[in-house]
Each structure stands twice: as structure tokens, then as C-alpha cells.
């Protein structure tokens, strides 16, 4: 049994395995399948200042080795989260993180401030990369200037661990990573979904109500892995890697590329027990390779 602990900007995790926002509900949905306390961290659904109904149905299309989604940040707003959901989940013995989204900078800051008050939430993940909302979302994550502006505003009101989730829909993700690092982000997580589209040739219509949506799943893994590797070389803060991780081998690839932790998203739909299997798999890999600690493989790619 190797030492699996990792540290993300002051937040210590039992192991590097987290769940990706929007794919794991509030954790509760998976409590029948796994022991949630075995996870390094859980990132709950994207939360906004106000209640959002999200986009109309259909919101999902299956694609080769992946899926498109256009949920559009459906959630009941941060106040509802604080009042109704937080009390239900705060005793789970893992790091419970909130993924924060907004349609303007103030929204981000106010939402973050409200969550800062919650004792059992050690960190937030700023979602400046959601491709499924009309205003804000991805727009913030595709230019250095606006990304930096969001982080600057939130950093002022949020002193705990601040993770910024980056969009892969950019020419150079390392630039954006560096600009949020410069504003004091404690960590970056990547990738969010890639903007894609699906068409039904029979009806000649787009499958999603929003025409385009976010691509996730194993199909995006090669792109995610490349971006994580590039970003790890570009910044000093820890990088959290995600995108298409389906098993422990995939997770280990991200760690080797330099990620300090990883998130599992779409794979939860295929196997609701995948997260704990990945924890076990990483541990076995470390044992098999005579590693005492997971830190021995983080960034261990031989080039």
C-alpha cells in the first residue's frame, strides 16, 4: 500500500482521484455503489448565483467513444445549495468541492464568497469553460484577459484553495493557465469539454436543442493528455488532469504527464464504481513498480 496522498494548494487529499463536476451529482447518487470516503475529492455540480433551469431537452448525444452534453448548468442556485444541500453532504469524509459558474464577474465573486463561508468546503473550482451557456461560461476561459479578471475578482473574496477549470477550446491553453496562475489561482484543472455537434441525418436536425454541446469521454483523452502535459511544463501550481479517464491506466498516464490529481467524469455513467476501482488500480501500479508514494510517478514521464 503506497502513500497516495497529494496536496493541491493546501488541500490535502487521501488520494489523487476526484470526480468531475456535473457527472457525479452531489455524490449522494453514487452512495449505493461506492464508499464515498474512499475518494480524494468530490466536485459537485456547477453552481451559479441564481437558480438555472438549464437548456431544453434533448441535452445529450452519444458519439464514437464519447458523448455530447448541453445541460447548461441546471442548478438551484448557491443559496439553495448552502441551505439544502450542504447540510446533507457536509459529513462525507472526503474533500467536497463546489464548481462555481457565472454569467458575469460579479456572479462568480458573490457565489464564491457565499461558499467561502461553508466550513466543510475546502476549495472551489471556477468553471470558466462551460460551452453550454449563452453568456459567460466558456467565453471567460478563451482569453487570457477575461480569465485573469474572473480569477482576480474571486481571489479577493476567496482565501481557501482556488482551482480554475480551463477550456480546451483555445489555441494555447498554457497561456490561459499562466494568466490565472499570475492572479493567484492555487491550481488549474483541465480539460472541460470540447465544443462539438451532432446531426440526425434522418430528420436533418441537430440532435441537441442547443445545436452544439460539450464533448467528453475517452475520445478526448489524447487531447486532454497533451494539454495537461503542456500545462504542467508551463506553470508551477499543481495541475489536475481530466478528460476521458476510463480506468486506472488512463489515470496513471495523466499522473505521468505531470498531473498532481485527476478527475473522473463521463466514466461514472458507464461504471458507477469506476472511481474506487481507479484508486485501487493506482495503488496496485505503485506496488507493482516498487513506488512508495504516488509522488514518485507524478511528472515521471521519460522523454
Amino acid at each position: 500500500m503506497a502513500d497516495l496522498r497529494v496536496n493541491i494548494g493546501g488541500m490535502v487529499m487521501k488520494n489523487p482521484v476526484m470526480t468531475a463536476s456535473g457527472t457525479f451529482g452531489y455524490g449522494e447518487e453514487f452512495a449505493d455503489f461506492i464508499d464515498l470516503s474512499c475518494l480524494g475529492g468530490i466536485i459537485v455540480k456547477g453552481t451559479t448565483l441564481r437558480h438555472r433551469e438549464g437548456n431544453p431537452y434533448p441535452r445529450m448525444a452519444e458519439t464514437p467513444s464519447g458523448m455530447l452534453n448541453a445541460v447548461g448548468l441546471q442548478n438551484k442556485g448557491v443559496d439553495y445549495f448552502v441551505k439544502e444541500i450542504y447540510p446533507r453532504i457536509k459529513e462525507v469524509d472526503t474533500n467536497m468541492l463546489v464548481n462555481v459558474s457565472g454569467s458575469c464577474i460579479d456572479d462568480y465573486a458573490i457565489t464564491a464568497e457565499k461558499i467561502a463561508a461553508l466550513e466543510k468546503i475546502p476549495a472551489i473550482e471556477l468553471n470558466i469553460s462551460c460551452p453550454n451557456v449563452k453568456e459567460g461560461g466558456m467565453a471567460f476561459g478563451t482569453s487570457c484577459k477575461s480569465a485573469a479578471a474572473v480569477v482576480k475578482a474571486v481571489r479577493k473574496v476567496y482565501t481557501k484553495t482556488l482551482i480554475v477549470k480551463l477550456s480546451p477550446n483555445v489555441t494555447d491553453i498554457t497561456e490561459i493557465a499562466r494568466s490565472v496562475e499570475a492572479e493567484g489561482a492555487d491550481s488549474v484543472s483541465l480539460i472541460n469539454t470540447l465544443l462539438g455537434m451532432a446531426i440526425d441525418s434522418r430528420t436533418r436536425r441537430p440532435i441537441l436543442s442547443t445545436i452544439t454541446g460539450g464533448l467528453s469521454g475517452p475520445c478526448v483523452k489524447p487531447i486532454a493528455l497533451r494539454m495537461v502535459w503542456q500545462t504542467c511544463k508551463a506553470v508551477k501550481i499543481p495541475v489536475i488532469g481530466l478528460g476521458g479517464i476510463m480506468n486506472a491506466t488512463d489515470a496513471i498516464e495523466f499522473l505521468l504527464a505531470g498531473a498532481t490529481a485527476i478527475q473522473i467524469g463521463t466514466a461514472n455513467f458507464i461504471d458507477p464504481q469506476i472511481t474506487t476501482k481507479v484508486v485501487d488500480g493506482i495503488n496496485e501500479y505503485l506496488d507493482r513498480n516498487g513506488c512508495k508514494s504516488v509522488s514518485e510517478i507524478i511528472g515521471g514521464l521519460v522523454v
Partner: protein
Amino acid sequence: MKKYVLDLKVTANIKLNDNYVLLKFTTLNDEVLPEMLPGQFAEVRIDGSPNTFLRRPISVNYIDKSKNELWLLIQLVGVGTRKLSEKREGNTVNMVLPLGNTFSNPNPGEKILLIGGGVGTAPMLFLGQSLREKGFEPVFLLGARSSKDVLQVSDFQKNGEVLITTEDGSAGEKGYVTQHSVLIDRHFDRIYTCGPKPMMIAVAAYAKAKGIVCEASLENMMACGIGACLCCVEDTQEGHLCVCKEGPVFNIEKLKWQI
């Protein structure tokens, strides 16, 4: 209700016609199957099918307690259901179950009509059996294209009266379920329905006009099946609700259908 991820073993693969297969499953080690309720479904993993990335939601068609068997009625529509239909006795299939809510309990003495169309008849068998066990006398109204698509009639008959409509008139009355004479001739207190959306909307419109309590079981596209992804939502009076978790069964009053 506790949900499980289970490998179940095929005990029978019965080809009902060119488009439908009935698969029967039991547990691997003779443990008792988890408790399941009518209207609930399983998210079935389709192995060996490169174009079937996500699990496929399939209703519980019947639970044969005496044999510890779960039945799934499969309509062959695409690659996933086709692959599933190829599973043979002894093959195992991975499922997450039981998922979703169930139909509400009728009041004692109510006259209940179960209307199923196409593969939407699948959950009606389990529901009918359960109602029968509770002392009700459900009437089944089954709609299909033609006589060969009217499935599991003898199973339905064990649990109540069976009425049939076919589009080509080759069995029962000719036309759609909502054109069946029973809807004019007899009175029902409650209707449960599952089938193609246009059919369910017509049924809902009829029920609403007559003031009959009506619940419909929806089949929105799903990714997770457990309320985690918010992909399967239906627009309702309470906003977007997950068909996989707050449904698949909804009282039609709650839906925003144009009826």
C-alpha cells in the same frame, strides 16, 4: 431503494418476432434478485459494440419470483439493442438496477386501464401482475402495428382482460389504442400508460378530458440513469425533472404536454 451494479446471467433468449426478443436473467450465485417495482428500469451495459458507448435503459418487463428471474423485453432498434439481443443462455450482462420511481398505488376498488404501445407494453406486464396481486382487476389495452407485434398476450391474460388494437386491423380493433371502443363504452378511474410519445399524449388528452387520473412512463434519452448528469430532463410544472430519477413515471398533470 438500494441500487446495485450486477452481472446477471441469461437463462433464456426467446425471439418473439423479427423485432422483439425476450431475455430472461438470473443472478450468478443464486442470490435473490434485488427488489424492483413496476415502472423501474435497468441501465444495461452493451459489451462488444464499438458504437454503443453508453448503457441502455430497459424497463423491468416482469419478475418471476418463483424462478428468481428478471425479464427484459427488447425491441431491436439500433446497434445496442441488436447486440443485446444476441446474448445467449449463460452469457452475462452488466446492469445497474433498479432505477427510477414507480406507478402510484390506486385507491381500493378503482377500475384501472393499462395502455401500452409498441415496446411500451414492457413495463405494463410487471405493473399488471403487481396490481393483480394487490387485488385489482386491471384491463390491458395493447396497441401494435399488426398482429405479429402483439406480444406476451398469454402473460397479460394471466393478470387481467386483454384488449388489442392494431394499425392494420390484423388483430383486435383496427386503429390506434385511443380509438378503441372500450374508451367509449366503459368507465375507468385510472390509466397507466407507456409507449410512443404521440400515443401517450393522445391517451393523456383523453384522460384529461374525462377527468381520469393518468400516469405516463417516459423514455427520454439517458446518459447516467441515476440522476447525476441531468441529461434526461422533462419540462414539468416543477421545472426540469430527471426522467431517470424523478420519473420515468409522471402524473400527466405534472407534465407540460399540450393536451
